């Protein structure tokens, strides 16, 4: 969703000069509020400082990719830990 939102923002900036005007005026946070970024990512993107809109777009792409790369590790348990709860694993070790 975040990359989709960023794609939508960058594509819109090509035909809508209002986006780059908002960026130059330091109001890009207002534009980001209209899109589907998480609060954390929205704060990260709003804090990017760049000389141009195109640079901002690329820096945002890096941030969104990094955030999306981290997301699966937060959602799934490590294969090393297995799917059993910790106390259940301890019980099995004691049996063995």
């Amino acid at each position: 969703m975040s990359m989709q939102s960023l794609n939508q923002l960058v594509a819109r900036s090509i035909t809508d000069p209002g986006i780059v005007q908002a960026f130059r005026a330091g109001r890009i946070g207002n534009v980001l509020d209209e899109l589907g970024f998480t609060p954390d990512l929205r704060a990260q993107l709003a804090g990017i400082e760049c000389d141009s809109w195109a640079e901002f777009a690329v820096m945002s792409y890096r941030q969104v990719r990094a955030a999306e790369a981290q997301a699966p590790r937060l959602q799934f348990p490590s294969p090393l830990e297995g799917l059993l709860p910790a106390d259940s694993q301890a019980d099995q070790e004691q049996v063995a």
Partner: protein
Amino acid sequence: MIQITREERHWFLDNVARALVEHSGAAEPPVPIEAILDHPPEAFHEDFGVVDMYSNLWDATFARPPGQRGSIFVRVDLPATARRHALARETLSAMITSKHGRDLGLPDLLMSELKESASYFASILLAPEAFVDAYRAQGGSEALFAESFVLPLEVAESRW
């Protein structure tokens, strides 16, 4: 100016192309490149002219005479597929050198790799990923891909 990778540059160009396709309202191939140039987004009204010319030197080139509208000068005798690709390729130069393109920061991002960027941009503008995916999903064949999208064969091969 930050250093960017080829993949990042292509991602950016994907979105530039997507903006033009969405503006055109096209929902299926072929992408109407001549209509995009005839009726550009407001921000590019002074940049998207097309002038047919007799030339043996090049297929198309963008130029912006001082104080005048920018135009793509294109050979009048090109086959349809070559003409569409040449127009799409030169559209990127028109955008980069436009006022809005400079406001966006396009020259710093794209000028150093202009030739490769323009070639990639043309292929993605004429065969957007969404259109290619839909064509495949509907059982479209590789044999008719170039014809359906009105692409030069080498571009069709790179996009299939």
